[in-house]
Each structure stands twice: as structure tokens, then as C-alpha cells.
């Protein structure tokens, strides 16, 4: 019924022909995401407790939708393989929620309305669903979760824990988008520790927020436009705690491809000791 009304709605308002949105038909040859990603157990651990999920969709034709990209990265913790399970469940649960609530409806909807949940609500609900799934299915397990939804160049990022999202440019290097939910990060914010002190602080691994916690989980939401020449980088602490930001930036901007960049980043982290699992996702959104 509603669907019909939506269709008829177009008819009704067509008395004022100018009010009907002409769909800008964009040539779509370059309207897809370019993506690279890599994950590695590192040198010191026996299991890879990180999880990564990459999903992109693009289509061409009349009334084309913006290219859709979903990138999730999770770094699990907890014994007896709980870490692996927690990170995998978190990434998959969040992706399922987002595709179901957000992407599938766009394939048929006519216009945006308040009847659809807002993007940030979908993201928060997705991460909270992941939290519930981990809490109930992996007792004693926990994970970080950083989830980037891209609609064309517009990035919406939901984040819990100490995995990170950055933008990378040749000119300015890395620009960190997310804030770590770690004790030492708060102390640095308050001016009680320097960044260097934080890097060697005995409690640098204490998170105050993670997936798998009981109770209500606060989810951070960030929004960024990833402009031409910029890339979005998601990574676990196995990368950022081992490799300096300037080196990460130079690897990303000089590598022949995004995939080659990801593999070089993993190699650099391993060369620096590879103390933890390393996962990297690099994304370049389609041009306008």
C-alpha cells in the first residue's frame, strides 16, 4: 500500500513537474571502491584473534544509488579461542544488521524519510547487536570493533575499543579519526601523560570500553568525507603500536596498489617485532 502511494506520490506532485527529482545518472565505470586488506598472526602469538570484513556494492543504470561500502575490523581478547570467536561474531553481526537495515531497503525505496532509521542509529544498533551477540555467545570474550560505512565518499564510522580509523594523504600523512577507549588515552587527553609515556605505560592495554561488556554500551560515531587523494585506513593495534605513523603514511602513499600497501604494512609491523596480530584495511572511495 505504502509502496503504491510512493509511486503514486510521484504522479500527484507531477503537476509541478519541476519538483520531481531527476536522477543524476552518473557514469559508473569508476564509481566503485578500491580496497586492499591483509591480516596476519604476527611473530609473537599463536592465534590470530583479529577479524576483518569487507563488503562493497555498486550498480549502474537509471536512478543509480551511491556506491556502498562496509568495512569492519575487530580485535578479540579472551582465552580458549574466545578472542577469535568474539571478533568474528562482532564483525559478522554488525555487518548483517547494517546490510539488512540500511542497504537492502535502498534498493527499492523512492525517497529518504524519517521512517527509515538514521544512519548513525543503524550503526549504533549494529554495534549494540554485536555486543549482545558476543556477551551471550562468548562469555569471557571481548573484542574491539571499528566499522566504517561508506556511501560514496562519505564515511560513517562506529567505534568501540582501540582499533583505529585514519585518513591518509600524501601531504598530511595520517589523521586519526577515532579515539581509543583506553585508560592511557584518557590520561593523555587530560595532560597527565605524554604520548610517549603512554606508549610504554604498564596499563596501556587497559580498555574501558569494549564489545562483550555487560550493560549498555556507548558507541562513538564519527563522520568524514574521504576526498579525492585521501584513503581510509582501518587497523588493529598490532599495526599502530608497532609502526610509526610517518612510516605507515609513507608506505600507503608510495605503494603501487592498495593491496600491496596492506601487505607492506603487515611486513613492517612484523619487522618491528610483530608483538600482536596485525590487520589492515585500506579504502579509496569512488570519484564523484
Amino acid at each position, binding site marked *: 500500500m505504502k509502496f503504491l502511494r510512493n509511486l503514486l506520490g510521484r504522479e500527484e506532485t507531477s503537476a*509541478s513537474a519541476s519538483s520531481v*527529482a531527476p536522477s543524476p545518472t552518473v557514469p559508473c565505470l569508476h564509481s566503485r571502491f578500491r580496497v586492499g586488506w591483509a591480516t596476519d598472526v604476527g611473530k609473537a602469538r599463536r592465534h590470530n584473534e583479529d577479524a576483518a570484513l569487507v563488503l562493497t556494492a555498486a550498480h549502474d543504470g537509471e536512478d543509480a544509488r551511491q556506491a556502498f561500502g562496509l568495512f569492519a575490523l575487530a580485535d578479540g581478547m579472551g582465552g580458549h579461542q574466545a578472542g577469535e570467536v568474539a571478533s568474528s561474531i562482532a564483525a559478522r553481526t554488525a555487518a548483517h544488521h547494517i546490510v539488512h537495515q540500511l542497504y537492502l531497503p535502498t534498493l527499492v525505496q523512492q*525517497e529518504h524519510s524519517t521512517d527509515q532509521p538514521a544512519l548513525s542509529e543503524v550503526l549504533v544498533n549494529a554495534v549494540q547487536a554485536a555486543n549482545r551477540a558476543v556477551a551471550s555467545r562468548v562469555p569471557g570474550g571481548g573484542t574491539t570493533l571499528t566499522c566504517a560505512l561508506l556511501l*560514496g565518499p562519505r564515511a560513517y564510522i562506529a567505534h568501540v575499543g582501540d582499533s583505529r580509523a585514519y585518513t591518509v594523504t600524501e601531504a598530511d600523512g595520517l589523521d586519526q579519526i577515532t579515539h581509543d577507549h583506553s*585508560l592511557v588515552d584518557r590520561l593523555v587527553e587530560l595532560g*597527565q601523560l605524554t604520548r610517549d609515556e603512554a606508549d610504554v605505560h604498564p596499563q596501556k592495554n*587497559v580498555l574501558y570500553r569494549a564489545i562483550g561488556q555487560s*550493560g549498555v554500551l556507548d558507541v562513538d560515531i564519527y563522520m568524514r568525507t574521504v576526498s579525492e587523494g585521501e584513503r581510509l585506513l582501518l587497523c588493529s593495534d598490532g599495526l599502530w603500536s608497532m609502526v610509526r605513523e610517518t612510516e605507515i603514511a609513507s608506505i600507503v602513499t608510495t605503494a603501487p596498489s592498495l593491496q600491496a600497501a596492506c601487505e607492506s604494512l603487515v611486513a613492517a609491523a612484523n619487522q618491528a617485532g610483530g608483538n600482536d596480530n596485525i590487520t589492515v584495511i585500506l579504502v579509496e572511495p569512488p570519484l564523484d
Partner: protein
Amino acid sequence: MKSLETHHIGIPDPSAESPAQEQTSRETRYIGVPESPVEPAKEEPKAPGPPAQTADRKGRGTQYMAPPSAGPEPVEGRLPDGYMLQDRYRVLMLHAVGGMSTVYKAQDLRFTRVTRLCIVKEMLNTAADPQVRAMVKSNFEREANILAALNHPGIVEVYDFFSEGKRSYLVLEYVDGKTLEDLLDEAEGFLPESQVVNWAIQVCQVLSYLHSHDPQPIVFRDIKPSNIMLDGHGRIRLIDFGIARNFQSGQKGTMIGTEGYTPPEQYRGSAEPRVDIYALGATMHHLLSKQDPKLEAPFSFHERPIHRTNPTVSRELTDVVNRALEYDIDKRFGSAEEMQRALMSLSSARGGSGTAPFGTTAFVGSDITPLWRFRCEDEIRSTPAVHNGIVYVGAYDHNLYALDAESGKFLWKYATEGGIGSSPCVYEGRVLFGSADRLLYAINAETGRIAWTCPTQGSVWSSPRAAFDHVFFGSDDRNLYAANTYSGRVAWKFATEGKVRSSPSIGNDTIYVGCEGGVVYAVDISGQARWRFRAKRSVTSSPAFSDAMVYVGCQDSYVYGLDIRSGWSAWRQRTGGPVVSSPVFGEGLLLVGSVDKHLYALDADSGRIVWRYATEGQVTSNPAAAGGAVYFGSVDGAVYSLDIKTGNLRWRFQTEGPVVSSPTVMDSVVYIGSDDRYLYALPA
């Protein structure tokens, strides 16, 4: 039952070296240092804090610390009920299990005629190296000796201590009572302010005793609701000792959860008496606000003011708690005595309920006097415009007035055939404004002579905006118009689904506008729709935009943040009433009023409420931001100025009628009209 796992009575003692961990900082080592082991670089850190539960990990993986609310976990090799220790203490039952200790309720059989209960705390010495193990034991004994010598009614007594093999034991007085954590959990509403103040005064007394201990002050280091017990006589007892910390094993990996009550400097190894002041402040914040700091970002008390959850708390008590919680140690109370005096001077300390709770600062005076005011013949509901030293304002008396901005002197007026609710805009020497007589007017900005009019089929309440030599405005005839600014000729009109009372915003070669039919449109400069967004009710508010988002208020009570490229709603924030006020940016915040009587400051990226300010009337006026302040009117008759960052009141000016007009700020002067028919010029 709550576990009693943490504990640190800290005694400064430079000679105390913890064997399980190496202190490399220059800091003095204290008994009960809450786990600040600084260790050689490149090694995995040891576990912070006593974990309520840790998952055993293969190798050097991460660990998960159970949420603080997790109950005790059975531990291997715990003593069976009836077990005898030292031929003297009979274990009656398990009392609690912590990360580093197991606590039993026991009976002291030395007292044969009475049943004397006690608490036996067992700590396991797990160090592999025999030398380290010996050091753990001797540290334990040295600290136990100091604790046993303490004598204060507010501190649980230490009766005895001993070691058996790998296990060390502390025998403590059994207190029949409940911890403040238990009492808080059980309380249905908020704990009475006078009760919390009374407990805090008693804790201050105990801290004064510990901090003045000879030869060295004792720092408790772990004040929190679960370590403070209320006995059957209403007396406070500090129940836990940090001695178990010596037995902490070197756990590694990522952990979740922080203590929540610990001051920032304690994580740098500092342990001076004022860390207890902070922890007491944190404890009081938790007791009064019912917000558990273990579940919040660390050190975030100032971001979560008590009155936000508990509006009954007095401002004076809040001030005391906030001072105890200062990040800067020198801004806190200098001593427990000083804090105690501040608490005792509160009216709630004398059994009163506290005075001046938040949100009742009702006063009707004004903090400032106007520079000038000018009386029109009817209500002023539009926003004044200021250009080249002239203020232009439309009134419901059908006139557009031009006044000297400095003196308020009348220059000229232009009469239309209807009330003017539209706000004028000045473009290329012309003042453009609409009237209820269905016309858009362009008049000479200096002389007030008419240049042209543009007829529509409905009243023009929408305020025109000009760009690209065109003026864009809406009409009650349901169209958005684009007219040439020189000739007034209509270039195009764009039909919407309702009256257009929203004022268009122009940017990125796009016009953003709402309509009473509840639709927000993005229209390109040739009059073609780029996208539309359908809300539930009228969109009278005018959109604001950034390079990525369009923001708009709606009578469905929401403020929407829409993706500027697609019209997709990125976020929405619900207020308590219709939003007619138009949002504006200031200092990275989105400011907007609501009929629910509040002015809101929202995070523009997430829509999260950063602060909100309550007035006595609906806020339909559009706020204006300038110089770190925000200005707006309320139907309560006042004009308000708030600090943008904090939402604190800077000043308030009372007019004689509702203020639905919106302010314009120019050269440190706020120009705003009121339904009392006056246009006011106020010092910003």
C-alpha cells in the same frame, strides 16, 4: 554478595620493594600501590588492578577482565567449611573472592564462652622464584604489622596475621553491616543528600587520622563505595586493605575495565593524601548521581554533572564534590580536614535538605541595560538585519523600519499592506523582505524608495536569501521562488508539498528549504530537485549546512542531520517539543531551540546533546552565535546569552512580552525584537 577484592591501604615506605614487579620510576613505593608496575620497555605489561576474573590465555595473549559487577568465581583449592587454621580459626563459610585473595567468614575459637566471628583473608603466594616468594611474605608481614597498629573506630581492626606454606592470612574484625555499594544498589530513589554528607564527613575523619599517621602518612588509595561499610550503629568503617596487592601475579595482555574512582596522577605512581580526596569525591558523585564510574569513561565526572541525573542535589554540595574531583591536585581540598569543614558548613550537614537545587534559579530581573530601544506599533517577530550602520526590521504593524544602529534613531519606514514576519536581507543596496500582503518587496536600502515588488499567490512569511543575482524565498502558495534581484522577474518557481515558511539556505550551488508539508528539499540553482527528505510534520525551521551535512528542525520534535549529497538522515535527535527554531553553528556545536523550553547544543557530527539550557518558555527564536556566546529569545519574555562551550548563563534581559524574534549580533551589539513592540539594542 560483593567481592572484596581490592584494597590498598598505602603506607609510604621507600624501602618497600615489591618483588613481583619492579618499580623503575622515581616515585616512592607505597603499600597498596594500585598496580603501577613500571617495567622494562618492550615487555608486555602486567595486569593492572585485581581482575575480578581473568580468562586464561595461551601464551601471551590478551586477557579479558570481567565487568566490575561480576560475582565471585569459585577458586581452586579453597578451604572447606570447618577447616581449622592455626588451631584457632574455624572457617565457617566463603565470604568473597577477589582477584588476589579469598575471604572467609570464620570463628575465633580462642574465645570459648562467646562466639567471636572474624574475617580471614587468604592470599596465595604464586611466585616461582623462592627468593621472590620470601620477599612477598616479608613485605606482607611488614605491612600487616603497620596495619595491626592502627587504632581508629572508623577502620576495621587487624587481629592477627600468619603464613602457612604458600598461603598468607590476615585476620580481621568481622563487621555486621552493609557496604555503601550495597545500600546504593538497594535504594529505590536517590540517597538523601544529608545522609551522603554525613557519611563523607565520617570518611574525612578516618582519612585525617590516616594522613596524619606518624612517622609517615598512610594513604588509603582505594576509597570507593564497596570499601566503605556502614555498621549497625550508623558508623562508617573502612573495611579493605591493599595488602593483597603483594600477591598479584604478573598477568599480561589487554584488559577491560577500570576502577573508576582513582585520580589521574595515581596512574603516574603518585600516592599522596590528596588521591584519597579525589576518590572520596568520586564516591560521593556515584552515591548522589547513581552513575557508576566503572561503567563510564575514566575521569569523566565533570562531563556528567550530578544534577543531570539527580536534580534535587544542592548546588553547594555539588561545588564541594567538584572541588574534590579537580584533575589538578592543587585545586583540590588541601587536606581531609579542609574537606570535612566544607562538608560540615553545608546546610544538609545539619539535617537540612540542602538549598538552591539546580534548575530553580527563577528570577525576573535583568543583568544588563539596553543601549537603546525603539517602539513599533505592533509585535516584532522577525529578525533584524544590520547593514552599513542601519538596522532594518519588519513589524506586524505592516511597516519595515530603518533605524540608526548606534542610536536607535528613526530614519524611515516603508508601509506594506500586511504584517511583516519575514526578516529582511540586504543585497546590492536593496532591502528584500516579504509581507503577508503576498508580495516580496525590494526597496532602496538608503532611501526606502521602492524598486520593485514580486507578487505570489500567498503570504510571504519566509525570509528571502540572495545569491547569484537572484533572491530565493518561499510563499504560502506552496512555491519556492527565484527572482532576479534587479528586476524582480521570476526566474523559476519550484512547487513543494506545502506552504513554504522556512527560509532557504544557499550553498554549493544548491538551495535547501523546508515546507509545511514536512518535506526538506535540495534544489539546484536551475530549480531542479537534487533530493528530498520526508519528515513527519511541518518544517518551518530554516536549514543550516556544513560541507557535508544539512541540519533542520521539524515540528515532529526532531532535529535532523542529513547527508548533504543524498538527503539520507545521518542522525536525528529528539527534543521534548516541536522545533520551529532554526539551527545555527557556533564553536563546532549546532545550537537550536525547542518548544520544550530548552536551547540545545548538539554535536554536529553525531547529534548527541552536549548541553541544554532550560528557560521558562518555548524557544522558537533562532539562536545567534558570536564571540563564544549564543543569544536567543524565549516566550518567557527574556533574551538570554549563554557561554557556548558550557551552556552557562552569561546574562538575561527581561522584556515585557514573549520574544519570538531572533537576534542579530553586529559589532558587539545584539539587536532583537519582542512582542512588547520594542526593538532592543543590547550590549553583547
